[in-house]
């Protein structure tokens, strides 16, 4: 194989810039630094018309399976891409793995999750207009995905949880775990250890990030201020939950998942102007402000359900903050070790509140977990990640 290689990175575009976009950018930079020619091929996943591979789908049919058709449309676009001029293709998010190439490395963080590991919880939350249709669509998606995934040469799985999903759903073991680091080059303040300001939770208000659990937990600890950084489609819902708990004697510990996070988040009652509580919805903040909030926080809560990786946990550990995650947090539980770098607790408002209470009462414990976190985060460097990446490349080229 002649070097330098011509490498194509395949990227579905969802119109957002999040952790994954940063990871892909970082890998492209590493490949360039290694002397390869790098190109990015993007496909817009927000189709302008209701059509799959040129076939017009009637609008009511399209709307009846709102996850299915856009996914098929995106898949078809990747399937059509001509990548013969490249020596190696690197697929990223689902469904970019649909591209066909003999040397195919997949940086794999997730399937189309509502048809895989999130199917049950997605249905339980009531997102699907029709459960039967959704399940049938799921079967079709998995049948269509299987041969594409089987033609991938090697998977760099975003976490152990993700590698396990490839085994469970696809019977695939040609994978190694790839630990993305924090993005290098960002100016970061030195780690500070636990602060005395507001407890911090950084994450989009989206299903199933479960920011609602933090809101409910905060109302079990009215003397603790909690800040939620991030925006998202469920912000109004979380806000309404905050208002409800701040103005009623409803017991936050008695709330069901359906009342907090396991629902569509639609139809939230309006919250009156001027409502304030011990929960701050900080929205989007500047990097400088976020750094300050990290510095002030006594601990960080990352309550997400089955996270693919968990960059926020690494970020918190790098800042010397103990991290509270949940037992079903997926990748998060691989990064955070109970009573070593944080607390791993049941996904309930009461358990999260108890963890916050423990870390804000026992400052020595918080400081110790924070210091361990700094060391753990240092292990997750981009230097180490680049080695894992190159090893994956060799697997495909061998």
């Amino acid at each position, binding site marked *: 194989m002649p070097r330098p290689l011509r490498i194509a990175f395949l990227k579905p575009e969802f119109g957002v810039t999040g952790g994954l976009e940063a990871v892909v950018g970082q890998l492209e930079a590493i490949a360039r630094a290694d002397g390869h020619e790098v190109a990015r091929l993007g496909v817009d996943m927000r189709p302008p018309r209701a059509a799959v591979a040129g076939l017009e789908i009637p609008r009511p049919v399209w709307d009846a399976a709102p996850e299915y058709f856009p996914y098929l449309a995106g898949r078809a676009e990747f399937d059509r891409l001509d990548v013969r001029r490249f020596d190696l293709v690197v697929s990223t998010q689902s469904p970019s793995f649909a591209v066909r190439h003999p040397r195919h490395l997949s940086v794999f963080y997730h399937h189309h999750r509502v048809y895989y590991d999130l199917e049950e919880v997605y249905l339980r939350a009531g997102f699907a207009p029709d459960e039967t249709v959704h399940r049938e669509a799921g079967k079709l998606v998995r049948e269509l995905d299987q041969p594409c995934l089987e033609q991938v040469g090697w998977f760099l799985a975003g976490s152990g949880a993700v590698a396990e999903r490839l085994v469970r759903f696809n019977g695939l073991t040609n994978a190694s775990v790839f630990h993305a680091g924090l993005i290098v080059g960002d100016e970061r303040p030195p780690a500070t250890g636990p602060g*005395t300001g507001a407890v911090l939770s950084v994450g989009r208000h989206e299903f199933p990030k479960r920011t609602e659990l933090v809101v409910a937990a905060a*109302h079990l600890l*009215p*003397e603790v201020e909690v800040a939620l950084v991030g925006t998202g489609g469920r912000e109004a819902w979380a806000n309404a939950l905050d208002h409800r708990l701040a*103005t009623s004697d409803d017991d936050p510990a008695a709330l069901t998942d359906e009342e907090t996070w396991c629902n569509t988040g639609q*139809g939230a*009652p*309006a919250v009156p102007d001027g409502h304030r509580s*011990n929960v701050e919805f900080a929205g989007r903040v500047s990097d400088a402000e976020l750094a300050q909030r990290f510095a002030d926080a006594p601990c960080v809560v990352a309550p997400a359900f089955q996270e693919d990786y968990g960059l926020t946990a690494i970020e918190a550990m790098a800042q010397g903050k103990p991290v509270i995650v949940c037992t079903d947090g997926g990748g998060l539980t691989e990064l955070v070790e109970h009573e070593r770098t944080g607390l791993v607790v049941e996904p309930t408002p009461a358990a999260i509140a108890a963890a916050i209470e423990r870390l804000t009462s026992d400052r020595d414990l918080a400081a110790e977990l924070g210091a361990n976190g700094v060391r753990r985060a240092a292990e997750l460097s981009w230097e180490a990640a680049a080695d894992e990446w190159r090893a994956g490349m060799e697997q495909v080229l061998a």
Partner: protein
Amino acid sequence: MKIAVVAPSPVPFTRGGAERALWGIQQAINDLTHHEAEMIKIPVDESTLPAVINSYQLFSELDLDHFDRIITTKYPAWMVDHDHKTILMMHVLRGVYDTYQYHHQPLTVPNPSDHVFAMLHLMRTNPGHRGALPEFFERWTNALAALGPDHPDFVFPGPFARLAIRWLDGIGMAPGAVKQYLSQSKTVALREGYFPTTVTPKIVNLPGHLPPAPHNDEYGSYLFTASRLDGPKRLDLLIDAMQYVPGDIELRIAGTGSLRPQLEAQAADDPRIRFLGFTRNDLLPELYANALAVPFIPADEDLGLITLEAFSQGTAVVTCTDSGGPTEFIKDGATGLVAEPNPAAIGAKLASLVADPDLAHQLGQAGKERGERITWDLVVEALLGDERFTPEELAARGAEGGDATEAARPRSRRRVVVLTTFPINDPGHGGQLRARNLYGALAAVRPVEVVALVDFGHQPSVQNLAPHLSQVVIPRSAAHHLKGEELSAEARMPVTDVVAGSHIELTPAYLEAVAEAADGASAIILAEPYLLPVVEQLDLDVPVIYDAYNVEASLKAGVFPDSALGAELLAQVVAVERRAVVRSARTTTCSEPDAVALAADAEVGPEHFTVIPNGTTIPAEVISAEDRAAQGARWRRRYWTAGSTGAEPEHLAVFFGSWHPPNLDAVELLIEVAAELPETLILSVGFHGQAFLNRIVPDNLVFPGMVTTRTKDRLLRAADVALNPMRLGSGTNLKLLEYLAVGTPVVSTPFGARGIDVVDGEHLRFAEPDRFAAVLAEVLADPAGAQVRAEAARALVSERYSWDRLGRSLADVVSDIVPAEARR
């Protein structure tokens, strides 16, 4: 069962909301029950008085005895005579009721002709009397023949028409002639004269769902309303409001009507306003579904089907405060928007949705959920009750629910019946708190049945609140409600408690419920004196305990207006309170001074009284010292403003209070205390904080505002000391008991502890106002001593002031007065 749905067929025929409702009722009975429903219609022309009266006659002579029951929704259909008649009122002939005033006609017939005079006499002397109908119709026929239809006495709407139609309705709707009254909305139920005054109609909303329509390219790009183009719909107001809606958003108006030319002229300058004219029903769903919002601002609408149609498509509705029916579903900012009825206010609401389509979507979704709670199932339930089921279905349901067995169990002769003017299970004012806790605790000794007279509009129900504690809820009738409103308006303050008993005959259902509950009971407790007339009118042979929450006479003397009405009301209160003491076998009071005052007024000896103070709930656990320290530190951190100067606070003291003059005065003292003790953070919690918003106070005095009970409990336990710096007020200080019950050390003025048997130095520390800061400093300096006192105080309160203990005291009073034969 065979059921006839009886209604007029409008001439000319239009397929409006009323017709859809009728078809829906017929279909719901046929589809959802084993009964058979048939629709019976007779054409009714409403254009002239002779035509209207003719239709009243036709219905009154209609024989529908081949049906087991009939359901009517509208005049003149309820003129049918039947053994089992249900009225589900859509509305009466509005022109001779609530909109009569717009016709500028007198209320009496000026110089009536002899024919009309005779009819007026017949009507006046035979209200609600069906037997007078043949004579009336005969005289009417003769009068019409003699005078001709254009005679001035027959102006329509006019005074004779008004009196005649109301008289006819009075016969069709007479209480003896109707088995069940329902109203399609609260608005309709409350209108003057619609229902007989002694009747409380049950509210049952009729669904107005349209089939769901898909979103199209135009989704969210226009405002839409569907309406008859006539005066009461107020489209002129909507067109004016559009001046206040910026941008190029269209307003589409579907519908036809007499005002179309005027409205089009009015809208000529605004190209965004489009009249769609007659619009087929099958096109409506899509028009609603894709609208950004639906403005619907009629004046005093009966129900407003438009609201429910828009709800069914998830589209937000903007209505007005005086729109009637729609406001029963639309709560401003929650399930839609409600504007004051002027163009600027309506325009502003619409503009807010144009600017924030997400909000419009959210409100639409909330409206949709509200609409989905209105179902045909509930309509069938309201119309037929348990009879909607076959006996087998009912038996199966009884076996599941267990309610049937509950009702069948013989009731204990030990039971006590309590009469209240409020539901005891709503946390609210102090009276409700006492009732729920004291009678709840009594229920541990004797079964308690509360008969609660509640506001008009609630559903009557029977609730099991706890083992051996049940509550029968009886809403006031519309007439009773209106009487209360009328007198409250005149007195310029709520006097509904007084009216509860003084006009109890307006809610006969309450008298019946008490008679039923008291039959065979061992005692009656009168919670407050106001329902004494119930006991007097029923002449019950059951011993009565009067539980006096206050000395009402002195309480009301301070607040009733200085007017003739005020004096009259006060005299009533004084009299009813005195009679309650005299009529009761025993009177219980909240304090010794109350007993003394009541005894003096009624000239009854002290042995007649037992003091049962207000109590408190004793929490099972106290907080540990470590948790108090950790939580206290966090509270101090949360409320210590970083920018302030001075020492960081080391201690946490708390005060709780509503916006009530004695509390505001107490805070004045706290301001002085805080200045002297800069190292103590004082949290002054409650609505009273609003009163100090613009005051400059020491940095260590903070007003967190209102908090939930949950938060209050947590803060109270975390505090180093709770403060009771009261200098003014009356009655006992319930919050002091609460402080002592949770085991938090207390500093109180001696005045603040009046009526509570605590000892300075043993249970708490007393401090006169001028020494308050000094004593507080001593308490904070000696936490061990404070802890010992707090534990002693908690023991004392558990012993004397727990509701359980007080409930047993009340049970002892009951046992004392119950005749021996009922004590078995």
